[in-house]
C-alpha cells in the first residue's frame, strides 16, 4: 500500500494524471511530496484501468512531471476530530493554521458524510429566538433547520448573521451546549476578520471552530471546506450533544469553484455553465442539517449567498431555495431607504415555522398574525404599484390606508437596531398594533375572536400618532362649509 510513485503523466489545471497505478479506491486520499519539500493532498476522482486522475487541493502550481513523489493513503478524505477543535482555526481541508499545533485526535471521520436515514430524523420544532422581529415573527428560525440568507453584494448579510449569533442566546453562559462552526468560502480577508472580531466581542470565540478558505486560496480546497466544517458540526452535535450553528459564507463562491473545477474536467455544463449535478452537490451539504433520534444535539445551518446581479432565479439561489427549508431574502430597495435589517418580507419564508410556533412555543396568535401580516403587506405592494401610476392622492381611502400601513410596517417592524434584541411578545404585539391601523374588515385571514382580543384601532393610531389624510380632508371640508 505504501508504494510511492515517482513523477506524473499529465497535469491539467487542478488535475494530475498518474499511470500504471494499482489498487486505488475511488475518492481515496493521495499525498504528493514535491522536491522542494512541500506536501500537498489530493483525491482520486476518476479511475480508468491503471490510470488515475487526482484532484489536488492546494493547486498544481510548481508541479512538474518529474518532481513529485505520490503516495496513496488507503482511505477516503478524513478529518481529525475532537472536542478541542472549538476555538481553533483550520484551512479549507481541515488542517490547523493557527500555529497551536495539531489537534489531539479522538476520531477520524470521512468528510463526505453518509446520507442521513429519513426515518432517523426528528422533525425540528424548537424555535430559536433571534431578537430580529422580521425573522422571529415571519420567518422563524427553527433548531435543526437550514435557512439561507439570499443577499447581494453590498448588503449587510454579515451583520445580520452576526446579530443572529449574538442574540440567539449562544453567548449565554448557561447554554454550554451551544457552539458555532464558521466556514469562510472564498470570502475576502476583511469578512473573515469581521466575523472573528464579532465572535470575540460577543465572547464566544472559544466556542467557534473556524474553517477558512479565503478568496485567494485554491478553489479545490474550497470544495472541501464546507464538507470539513459540516463533518466537524456533525461530530459535535451527535457525539457531544451540542447545538451547532453552522455559518457558510459565501455559497456563491463555492458554486463558482465547483463550476471552475467541472470545466477543467471537461464535463458537459448545465445552466449558465454550472455542472448538471449542482443540485445534488448542494443537497449533499445542506441536507446535513437536522436532528437525529437519540442524539441531544442538532445542526442548524445559515448559509449565506450573494445573488449575482440580485437575480433570485440565478441557478445558485434557485437550487438552494429548492433544498433549504425557506430563505431570508435581503432587499436592496429597503437597504437604500436606510432600513436595517433590509429583509424583504414577502419572498422570505421559513418552511418549518408552522410547527414550531404557536401556543407552547411562541404564542397562540402567532400563526394568524403572520398570515395576516403577509396578506396585508402583499396588498401594500398592489397599492404602491397603483400609486406609482396614478399618484398617491388619487388612491381610494383603503389603498391610502395600506400605503400608510406599509410605511409604518417598514420603519417600525422590519427596521431595528443592530444591538436591539426584541422579545417575541413585543414583536407580536407590535404586529397587532400595526394591523390595527387598517380597517377591521380588511383583516380577512383572522378569526373574529383574535380580532376582539388584539384589534384596537384607536390605541394603534395614538401609538403611531397618525393623522389620516382622510381626517385632514374632512376637516378641510368642514372649514370650507
Amino acid at each position, binding site marked *: 500500500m505504501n508504494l510511492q510513485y515517482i513523477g506524473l503523466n499529465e497535469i491539467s489545471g487542478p488535475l494530475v494524471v498518474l499511470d500504471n497505478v*494499482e*489498487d*486505488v*479506491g*475511488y*475518492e481515496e486520499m493521495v499525498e504528493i511530496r514535491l522536491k522542494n519539500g512541500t506536501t500537498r493532498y489530493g483525491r482520486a476522482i*476518476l*479511475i*480508468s*484501468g491503471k490510470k488515475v486522475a487526482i484532484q489536488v487541493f492546494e493547486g498544481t502550481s510548481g508541479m512538474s512531471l518529474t518532481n513529485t513523489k505520490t503516495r496513496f493513503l488507503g*482511505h*477516503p478524505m478524513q478529518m481529525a476530530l475532537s472536542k478541542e477543535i472549538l476555538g481553533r482555526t483550520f484551512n479549507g481541508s481541515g488542517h490547523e493554521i493557527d500555529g497551536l499545533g495539531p489537534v489531539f485526535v479522538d476520531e477520524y471521520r*470521512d468528510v*463526505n*458524510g*453518509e*446520507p442521513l*436515514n*429519513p*426515518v*432517523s*430524523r*426528528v*422533525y425540528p420544532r424548537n424555535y430559536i429566538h433571534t431578537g430580529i422581529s422580521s425573522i422571529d415573527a415571519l420567518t422563524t428560525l427553527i433548531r*435543526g*433547520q437550514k435557512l439561507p440568507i439570499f443577499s447581494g453584494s453590498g448588503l449587510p448579510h454579515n451583520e445580520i448573521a452576526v446579530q443572529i449569533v449574538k442574540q440567539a442566546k449562544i453567548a449565554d453562559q448557561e447554554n454550554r451546549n451551544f457552539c458555532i462552526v464558521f466556514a469562510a468560502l472564498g470570502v475576502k480577508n476583511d469578512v473573515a476578520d469581521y466575523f472573528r472580531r464579532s465572535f470575540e466581542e460577543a465572547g464566544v470565540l472559544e466556542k467557534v471552530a473556524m474553517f477558512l478558505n479565503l478568496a485567494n486560496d485554491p478553489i479545490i480546497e474550497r470544495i472541501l471546506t464546507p464538507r470539513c466544517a459540516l463533518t466537524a458540526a456533525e461530530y459535535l452535535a*451527535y457525539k457531544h450533544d451540542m447545538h451547532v450553528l453552522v455559518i457558510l459564507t459565501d455559497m456563491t463562491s463555492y458554486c463558482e469553484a465547483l463550476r471552475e473545477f467541472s470545466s477543467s474536467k471537461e464535463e*458537459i*455544463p448545465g*445552466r449558465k455553465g454550472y455542472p*448538471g*449535478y449542482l443540485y*445534488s452537490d448542494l*443537497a*449533499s451539504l445542506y*441536507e446535513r442539517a437536522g436532528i*437525529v433520534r437519540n442524539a441531544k444535539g442538532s445542526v442548524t445551518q445559515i448559509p449565506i449567498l450573494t445573488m449575482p446581479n440580485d437575480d433570485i*432565479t*440565478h441557478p445558485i439561489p*434557485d437550487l438552494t*431555495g429548492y*433544498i433549504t*427549508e*425557506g*430563505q431570508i431574502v435581503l432587499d436592496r430597495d429597503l437597504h437604500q431607504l436606510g432600513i436595517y435589517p433590509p429583509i424583504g418580507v*414577502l*419572498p422570505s419564508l421559513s418552511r418549518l415555522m408552522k*410547527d414550531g410556533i404557536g401556543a407552547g412555543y411562541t404564542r397562540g396568535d402567532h*400563526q394568524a398574525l403572520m398570515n395576516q401580516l*403577509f396578506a396585508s403587506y*402583499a*396588498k401594500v405592494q398592489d397599492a404602491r404599484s*397603483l400609486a406609482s*401610476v*396614478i399618484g398617491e392622492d*388619487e388612491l381610494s381611502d383603503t*389603498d391610502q390606508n395600506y400605503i400608510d400601513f406599509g410605511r409604518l410596517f417598514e420603519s417600525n417592524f422590519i427596521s431595528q437596531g443592530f444591538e436591539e434584541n426584541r422579545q417575541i411578545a413585543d414583536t407580536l404585539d407590535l404586529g397587532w398594533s400595526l394591523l390595527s391601523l387598517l380597517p377591521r*374588515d380588511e383583516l*380577512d*385571514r383572522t378569526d373574529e375572536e383574535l380580532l376582539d382580543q388584539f384589534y384596537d384601532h384607536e390605541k394603534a393610531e395614538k401609538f403611531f400618532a397618525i393623522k389620516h389624510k382622510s381626517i385632514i380632508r374632512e376637516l378641510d371640508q368642514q372649514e370650507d362649509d
Partner: protein
Amino acid sequence: MSENKIFSINGPVVTVRNATEFSMLEMVYVGNNKLMGEVIQISKDTTIIQVYESTTSTKVGEPVYSTGQPISVTLGPGILRNIYDGIGRPLKTIYETHGAFIASGIHIESLDPTLEWEVNFIRKVHDNVGFGDIVAKIQETDLIEHRIMVPKGFDGEIIELAPAGKYKIHDVIAKIKISTGEILEMTMVQKWPIKTPRPVSRRLPISIPLVTGQRVVDTLFPLAKGGTAGVPGGFGTGKTMMQHQLAKWCDADLIVYIGCGERGNEMTQALEEFSQLKDPKTNRPLTDRTVFIANTSNMPVAAREASIYTGLTIAEYYRDMGYHVAVMADSTSRWAEALREISGRLEEMPAEEGFPAYLPSRISQFYERAGYMETLNGQTGSVTIIGAVSPQGADFSEPVTQNTKRFVRCFWALDKQLAYARHYAAINWNLSYSEYIGDLEKWYNKNVDIRFLKNRRAIVKLLAEENKLMEIVKLIGSDVLPDDQRLVLETSRAIRVGFLQQNAFHKEDTFVPLAKQLRMMDVILYLYQKSLSAIHEGKAFSLIENTNIFEKVIKMKYEVPNDKLEMFDDYFTLIDETIYQIR
C-alpha cells in the same frame, strides 16, 4: 462468473471490459461491498453500469456479479405503513440495524420475513387459475385487505392448498401444476421488474373524479381517478404542501408517496403527520393506507431514477387487487435531473439545457402508467399520478415543465405572487387547466348536482372577466369603472378569497366536501345576481359594498361547519334582507 472486473470508476458510473453475459437493465452487484447497480449500456468491449450507492473506496479490479434479473421490487403483504428507499430497501429496518446513517452495501429484505399473516383462501383445490387471479386474502392493515395474486408464469391448476391459518411470507401456501406438467410452489411474495408496467386486461374510459376536498381542484380543475396531473411551481410556492394535502384527503384507497430528491425533514414530517392523522371514514391512522418511498436529495443520485419506478410498480400491484391508488411524485424534476447527471457522465449528446434527448419519452412512459383499468382478475382499479415539477427559476418554459405539460391532462400551475400573499392553494386560475371536465360531467350531474358545473362555468367566466378588468384597474384604479364592472371585481374577490383560498390548518377548511363547495358557490353567485339586479334598478354599488355583505360571505368558509350545510340558508336570507334594505 467473477472474471468480470471493474475497469473504471467515475462517480456512480462504473465500466466493465470485455464482458458478454450482461443484458440491458440487468441488476448487478458491484465490488466487494456488493453495491447494487444496473446495466445501462452495452457495447462489444465495454459494459456501463450505474451504481445505486456511493462508490467511494471501490477499487478497479473488484468483481462485478451478474444476477440475470432486471431491477425488481418485492411485492407482498407488509408493504403498507413502510418507508422504502429508491431501490426498495426498508428504511425503518436499516435504522434499527445500522443506525442513523445509511452506509453502502446494506442488503436487507424489503418485507419482514418473520411476520405472520392470517391467510384466508378464496380458491379451492383443482381450481384453474391464471396470472393475476386472487387466491387468498390477508387483512394487511385495518384499512386495506391484501389480496394474494397468482404470480406471472403460474397459470394452471391448484393441486395443493395450505389450510387457512398464519403464515410467513416465504411459506408455501399453494402448489400449482402448470401446463408443462411442472409443479410450482407459490408463496406470498413475488418480484416484478420496476421498469415494466404490470399488465391489465384493458383500459377503461375515465369517468370518476378524485375528490380531494380542495375547492380550487375539485371545482375549477378536477382530476379524475386514473388521470394525471402536473404541479409546477418555483420554490416556496407550496408544491409539497399541496401534495401532502392531497395525500391526506383525497378519496383514493391507497397512497404511494414518492419523495424523490427532496428534503429529508419533509419525509420525516409526512411520516409523523400521517401516523397521527386519522382517516375520516374509518378513524384509523393514515399510514395504514400509505407507502412512502424516500430518496432524499442527499441519497445517491442513480437511485433517484429508480425511486419513481419502484413507487409506480407498488401502486400497480395494489391496483391489480382492485384498489384506486394515487401516486404523489415529489418532484419529477429531480428525477429528470438524475437522468441528466447520468447522461452527462456517459458523455451523451445533450439536448435542451443539458437534458438528454430521451427526456420526453421517459416522461411520457412515466405518465402513461396511470389509468383506469380493468385488471386481469376482472376488477376495476386505477393509478392516478400527481407529479410535482420544480422548474428552474420558476420558468415554465424549461424542458421538464414543457414536456410534462404535453403528457398530463391536468395542469395546476402554482403562482409565486399568490404564495407570497399566503394564498393556499396557490394555483393560478388563469394558467391552469383540466381536460377532465367533459369526462366527469356525467358523474358531477348525477352524484352532486346539475348546478355544480353550471356554477363552475359562471365562476370561471367571472374570474376571466376580472382578469381583463384588472388590466384597466392597474392603470387607472377601480373607482372609475361602471358599477356593474365593480361588482364583477368585488364578486371575483369573494370567489378568490372566500372560495378558492383555503386554510389548510383550519379544521373545517382543510377538507371541504363537494356538497359544501356547491352551496358556497350558490351563495356567492346568488349575491352576484341579486346585486346585479339592484344595480340595474339604479342602486349605487357603493351602497351594497358598504353593507359589508361581501365580507360576511367571504368568511362563510369558517362559519359553516362541514356537517351543518343547512346554515347556508341563512346566507340567502341575509343577502335578500341586505339588498332589500338598501332599496
